[in-house]
């Protein structure tokens, strides 16, 4: 039999002015199960809380209802007081008779009747409350960072500098990502390599960072604080411990005409290679598809010339399992490729711009490589077709971006700024050249951004034409660009030597597959979704997984770095305690009743529902049921309302409690 204590607060006069609190206390005191009921001027004050604690002990109360303000205001206060008196805090409930009653009704009779109802409802509810122990989850204080671009590097360095171990996984043979490809960066025009490579070296030398390059995530299991990650370390064919990075193998390799992806395929590399000279780690990789040894079984020149004997043709892919407590996803972006339409993709190509057909129509990243001092042309702007310097160059913005009819409706955010930068770089290198830019809008929100854009027009003499290009075709060695200038209302025709397209930013290929492994959600473009667009912009809905950089949406470098540091701060918050404590409002499955339809699994936005196998003593499978991981569950209860056999229960909001409340009315 329950012994419920009810405490009615006057809230000074805020409640007692319209609600007859003494009558409420009297009426509620008559309810079955209520053994103590009183009213007090300020329940939340120290004497008020002491009254509550004393009553719990003296009257041997089993449950408590405090009728006062909104639980959003003082639920924590009264639950703490209840706990201090030796009762489980979840046996205390609040009845809201201020915000929902005394403040919104003027008539004393009506308000009093309503208050009696509200308190009565909570009395019936609290009878069904169960003791809920606080959930504690152990935390492994190591973190995984996926992606070795500037976002991943920044996050890894920040976490490691706090003394926590970091495992950094990068798909490519070297750290650096797209930022390492850039020539100079807006709005200060500092050289990307100069600011990037020291950070790459810091990562490699950091005692707390374990670096896996040329590796991918194979499998992710577990939950916040307790992830088990399987990493596939692809065979480099070069022993990392033995290799000194002297590079003799690369100079002797007979296969020298392989397009280098890092140089946007305009520069060439050998079959044993590092993507760029400042690569970290500086250990080469053998590209098995193009290596003569793997194709014909002959050659082996690299092995013969390697002094330390690091080349190992027999090396195999390795699977490595690491235990981590938090994951930062920083997989970055890819450029929209317009010459091919990916299979099954709703995004249509841009055949009319001739990218992939006309050699001198290039994308922005290719231009970066041409302008880069360490690029294939040594920093000279030269046409890929004949190596001549272009004297007229046309930049076209919003290729792919903001084109709903083509499948991408978002703005890629950085193109306005990098095109302005390109016109400057071009003008610095080709003094007698002329740059034209076709644009829809110039979007330059950012510190010193608009000034930078204006400089490209006012000082660097770029001609901006508002309007889109309708057609583009080759005429002799020129490219004729036809477009409209909507500001003046005329058709424009420019005979250009080179055309640069500011193509849209998209998530990395395979971003969706990785999201499925991690159990995080992504939008229709495969950008990863944050838990809340405004207030939780770096956390995934899946607890313990955080986002950094362009994998979440198009971002420039300062924003990416800020988000990476924010993600690192979130990881450190998680690591600041040995055990993760959380409210025990989580769903539980009655396994005996579960039929294993997994309707709950489908509606769970947090990936908290797992498949559990029930076996007999011989190990034979009896049935599979749903299991809600209390470390992951957020307590929304959607699974409970969805469950057709009503075998999921949300603690604190059980069907029994709700029905008791309805029946009390």
């Amino acid at each position: 039999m329950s012994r419920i204590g009810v405490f009615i607060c006057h809230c000074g006069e805020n409640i007692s002015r319209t609600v007859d609190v003494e009558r409420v206390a009297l009426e509620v005191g008559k309810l079955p199960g209520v053994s103590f009921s009183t009213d007090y001027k300020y329940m939340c004050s120290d004497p008020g809380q002491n009254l509550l604690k004393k009553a719990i002990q003296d009257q041997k109360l089993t449950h408590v209802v405090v009728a006062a303000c909104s639980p959003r205001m003082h639920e924590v206060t009264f639950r703490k007081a209840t706990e201090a008196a030796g009762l489980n805090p979840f046996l205390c409930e609040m009845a809201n008779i201020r915000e929902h009653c005394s403040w919104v009704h003027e008539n004393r009779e009506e308000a009093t009747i309503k208050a009696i109802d509200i308190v009565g409802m909570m009395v019936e509810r609290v009878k069904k409350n169960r003791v809920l122990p606080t959930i504690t989850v152990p935390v492994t204080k190591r973190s995984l960072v996926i992606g070795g671009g500037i976002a991943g590097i920044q996050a890894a360095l920040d976490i490691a500098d706090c003394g926590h171990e970091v495992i950094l996984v990068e798909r490519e043979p070297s750290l650096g990502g797209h930022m390492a490809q850039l020539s100079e960066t807006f709005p200060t025009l500092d050289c990307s390599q100069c600011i990037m490579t020291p950070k790459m070296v810091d990562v490699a030398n950091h005692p707390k960072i374990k670096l896996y390059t040329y590796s991918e995530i194979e499998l992710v299991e577990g939950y916040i604080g307790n992830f088990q990650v399987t990493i596939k370390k692809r065979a480099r064919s070069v022993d990392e411990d033995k290799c000194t990075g002297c590079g003799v193998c690369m100079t002797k390799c007979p296969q020298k005409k392989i397009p280098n992806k890092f140089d946007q395929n305009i520069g060439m590399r050998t079959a044993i290679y590092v993507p760029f000279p400042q690569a970290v780690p500086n250990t080469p990789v053998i590209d098995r598809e193009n290596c003569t040894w793997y194709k014909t079984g002959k050659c082996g020149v690299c092995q013969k010339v390697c002094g330390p004997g690091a080349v190992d043709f027999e090396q195999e892919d390795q699977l490595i399992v690491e235990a981590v407590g938090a994951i930062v996803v920083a997989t970055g972006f890819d450029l929209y490729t317009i010459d091919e339409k990916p299979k099954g993709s709703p995004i249509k190509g841009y055949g009319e711009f001739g990218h992939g057909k006309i050699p001198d129509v290039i994308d922005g990243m290719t231009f970066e490589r041409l302008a880069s001092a360490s690029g294939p042309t040594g920093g000279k702007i030269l046409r890929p077709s004949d190596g001549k310097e272009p004297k007229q160059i046309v930049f076209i913005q919003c290729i792919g971006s903001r084109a709903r009819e083509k499948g991408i409706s978002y703005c890629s955010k950085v193109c306005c700024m990098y095109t302005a930068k390109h016109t400057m770089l071009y003008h610095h290198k080709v003094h007698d050249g002329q740059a034209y830019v076709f644009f829809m809008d110039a979007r330059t929100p950012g510190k010193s951004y608009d000034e930078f854009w204006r400089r490209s027009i006012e000082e660097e003499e770029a001609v901006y034409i508002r309007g889109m290009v309708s057609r583009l075709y080759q005429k002799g060695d020129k490219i004729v660009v036809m477009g409209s200038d909507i500001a003046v209302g005329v058709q424009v025709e420019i005979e250009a030597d080179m055309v640069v397209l500011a193509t849209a930013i998209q998530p990395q290929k395979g971003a969706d597959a990785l999201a499925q492994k991690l159990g995080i959600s992504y939008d229709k473009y495969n950008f990863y979704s944050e838990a809340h667009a405004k207030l939780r912009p770096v956390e995934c809905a899946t607890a313990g997984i955080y986002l950094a950089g362009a994998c979440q949406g198009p971002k420039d470098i300062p924003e990416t770095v800020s988000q990476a540091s924010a993600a690192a701060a979130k990881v450190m918050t998680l690591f600041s305690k040995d055990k993760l404590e959380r409210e025990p409002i989580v769903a539980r499955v009655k396994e005996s009743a579960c039929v294993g339809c997994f309707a709950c699994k489908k509606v769970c936005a947090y990936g908290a529902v797992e498949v559990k196998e029930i076996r007999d003593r011989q190990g034979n499978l009896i049935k599979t049921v749903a299991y809600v991981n209390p470390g992951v569950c957020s307590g929304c209860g959607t699974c409970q309302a969805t469950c057709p056999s009503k075998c999921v229960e949300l603690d604190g909001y059980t069907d029994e409690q709700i029905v008791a409340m309805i029946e009390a009315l």
Partner: protein
Amino acid sequence: MHPEKQTHAFEPKIIAFVCTWCTYAGADLAGTSRMQYPSNVRVLKFPCTGRIDPVFILKAFQQGADGVLVSGCHPGDCHYIAGNFHARRRFAVFRKLLEFIGVDLNRLQFSWVSAAEGGKWVEVVTDLTERVRAMGPMTEFKELAMEEQWSGAINTPELQEAYNSI
């Protein structure tokens, strides 16, 4: 000084199922802003509209509610990412079922009230109360219960035997 109670021939009983993050907070805001609305409504708090089982709505009508209000976060603003979308889909189907069994859908109101919309909460509650007041008491469920009781349909010996044999 307390204003006189307005007398109506019929005072409807309204039960509101709301989510804690948006509508409950919106109702709190109506309170802190001292807005006034009819006292007929009784609020039940849920973590999310996704938690609200259609059975609760039936239960409320069975228990003598004359009107039911379900309210949560605006689409896209759900604290739990998508709970309100699941709720919306569930209730879209459930409404048809209610209509089929003969419940006047004017007694059931779904709305989105955010934590900033104290005024909207007052409006929604007032509208529903006035509407249901004009419609009169909800008798369908009560009549059904009476019928079962008086016809004794459930307690015939034949049925009892059949039940026992199961």
